[in-house]
């Protein structure tokens, strides 16, 4: 039935339909995001989902592993939160997360976790006359900047750490990740350890209530915001900073030593991490002791069911990780990741005895 006014303006009825259709579409779009976390796994391949941080390395490993064994890996880099949800729902064999799960959540879902690789996070700055590696910061100063308490680059706290540097009176602009991210989790965990104010006011998580600054999507977003904005500071994964020649800072570590971000200092942080005494490998490796340790180091954990429904698939996944620990070190290094130290690998593979089928450890039986 055409409304009365349609007689005057023939185009309007179709235009009204379009309008209605559009309204419905935008509603459906909202729900589509909500239900986007579905996925299916290929039968022959190992299936996994989660952390975007570890994706470039997993892809590289998987490629080599497929050539060597014929078994592929189907990994969806949908983010740690998505990886946790999918492994809990058993739609994938393993999940990968940049934020370890607590003991309660692990036991509730019958999951075990272990670290597979480590890396570093570096602050990047854009200050007139400051070159990569020129600026030195420590935890409390970094927290002061991100809390909005230090508002100018010639602040006495920054000058005290950099006596030889001429710092301009440029206002500080904070750039942070707007999307939930394991990078944010480790960075805010470090700030929480170094600053009681940060811990009380903000805390640590994959997304936090930023007191100041602009949010940019992804590491590319943060890096470009910093590049474009004079006086800005942000944080990105080391691989991103080194490959794009960004102006990174040095940091004062837990032992009071000034360290440069590189694979050696990340490796030192990993080597000094006391995984032997960490239940469920739940150890966040920020602010680790050691003269050479980089303070903002990060790891990625794999989550897998302790009593998997599909024992064969879980066995294949464990075989893949075993292969990666032993043969994937050079590839990890080439992509600016830090391999798990051999001593920790021994601990991890021992913990795999807890992944069982029919009362027998799956990995040892192979």
């Amino acid at each position, binding site marked *: 039935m055409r*409304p*009365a*006014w349609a007689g*005057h*303006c*023939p*185009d*309007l009825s179709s*235009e*009204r339909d*379009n*309008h*209605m259709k*559009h*309204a*419905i579409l*935008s*509603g*459906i*779009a*909202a*729900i589509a*995001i*909500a*239900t*986007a976390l579905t996925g299916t796994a290929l039968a022959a391949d190992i299936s996994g989902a989660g952390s975007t941080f570890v994706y470039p390395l997993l892809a590289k490993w998987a490629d080599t592993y497929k050539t060597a064994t014929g078994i592929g890996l189907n990994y969806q880099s*949908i*983010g*740690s*939160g*998505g990886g*946790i949800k999918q492994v809990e729902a058993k739609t994938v064999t393993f999940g990968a997360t940049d*934020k370890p799960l607590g003991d309660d959540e692990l036991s509730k879902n019958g999951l075990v976790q272990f670290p597979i690789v480590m890396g570093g996070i570096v602050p990047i700055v854009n200050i007139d006359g400051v070159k990569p590696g020129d600026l030195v910061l420590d935890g409390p100063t970094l927290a002061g900047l991100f809390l909005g308490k230090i508002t100018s680059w010639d602040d006495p706290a920054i000058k005290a750490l950099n006596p030889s540097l001429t710092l301009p009176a440029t*206002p500080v*602009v904070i750039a942070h990740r*707007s*999307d*939930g*991210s*394991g990078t944010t989790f480790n960075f805010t965990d470090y700030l929480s350890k170094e600053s009681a104010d940060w811990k009380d006011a*903000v*805390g*640590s*998580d*994959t*997304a*936090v*209530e*930023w007191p100041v*600054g*602009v*949010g*940019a*999507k992804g590491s590319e*977003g943060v890096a*470009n*915001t910093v590049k*474009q*904005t004079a006086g800005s500071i942000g944080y990105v994964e080391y691989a991103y900073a080194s490959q794009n020649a960004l102006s990174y800072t040095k940091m004062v570590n837990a032992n009071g030593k000034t360290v440069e971000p590189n694979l050696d200092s990340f490796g030192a942080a990993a080597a000094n991490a006391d995984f032997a005494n960490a239940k469920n490998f739940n150890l966040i490796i920020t602010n680790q002791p050691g003269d050479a340790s980089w303070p903002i180091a990060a790891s990625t954990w794999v989550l897998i069911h302790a009593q998997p429904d599909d024992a064969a698939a879980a066995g294949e996944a464990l075989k893949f990780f075993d292969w990666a620990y032993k043969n994937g070190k050079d590839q990890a290094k080439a992509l600016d990741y830090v391999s798990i130290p051999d001593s920790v690998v021994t601990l991890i593979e021992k913990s795999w005895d807890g992944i069982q089928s029919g009362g027998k450890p799956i990995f040892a039986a192979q």
Partner: protein
Amino acid sequence: MAATAGVGVGDDGALRLARQKAQNAVVQDRFFYWLTFACAALVVVLLLGVMVSLLIGAWPALSTFGPAFVITERWSPVKEIFGALAPIYGTIVTSLIAMIIGIPVSFGIAIFLTELCPVPLRRPIGIAIELLAGIPSIIYGLWGFFFLAPFMQTTIQPALIGSIGKLPVIGILFGGAPYGIGLLTAGIILAIMVLPFITSITRDVFETVPTLLRESSYGMGMTTWEVVRSIIIPYTRVGLVGGIMLGLGRALGETMAVTFVIGNSHNIMPSLLAPATTISATIANEFTEATGELYTSSLIALGLILFVITFLVLGLAKWMLGRAEVK
């Protein structure tokens, strides 16, 4: 089904065949009626299904925070305190900026195309506008982030801060530091995105004005401006409202382009140059890493709010069309 009554009575073979055919036609029509009815019903069922699932998903957040969810600003995933005011504010303000810029420009284009444009130019300009509508929103986002935002930061925003920003009262809208990204930049991107939608509808309805009416007006010595203001716009008022609402609906729900240039901050600032966030940008940013029931539920509740806002806009449009019809 009246046609079935006569079947089987006739003794003439040809007549029986004709009746059989008629009956088949009736069955076919019935079948076709129910088939199309099912298609139409599917839309309604889908719509209700979306609404119900949004409500169920949003319930933990809504029951935990109550009305405070829509009137508080604090959004803290760490402490699990969620308030949607900042995204709601950002959604409405960016859409308003888009409308303030988009409507006059669209009308200008439409008036030029229908009233003033030399005929050989009409097609190229019309095609250019349609192509603008075809650009995916992610491209607008990238373009906004890499080109528009730096341009805003180095040129437009310092000029605004230095001029309007110094005025009393209104100056507060243009204060602060030039970040490049923020409400104004997002509003401008949205204005560019809604432009083709409003323009094409406006142009189409302007063309429905009878030539007789138009020519008579010119014949009586009216200027182009007078014809547009007194004849064309009143005549097409209903269609114009529809076009504007279509553009507004697009602006409210736009996600990717906005996410790149809005600044994604959950703090409400008075300045239009400050970073902010919108409902769809918040969902797109935070859903992948949202852990915990309350966090996920709060994001779904944001989706529900966007749904409600879109519905209100639609309702308002219908109401305005209804009023215009009565006149």
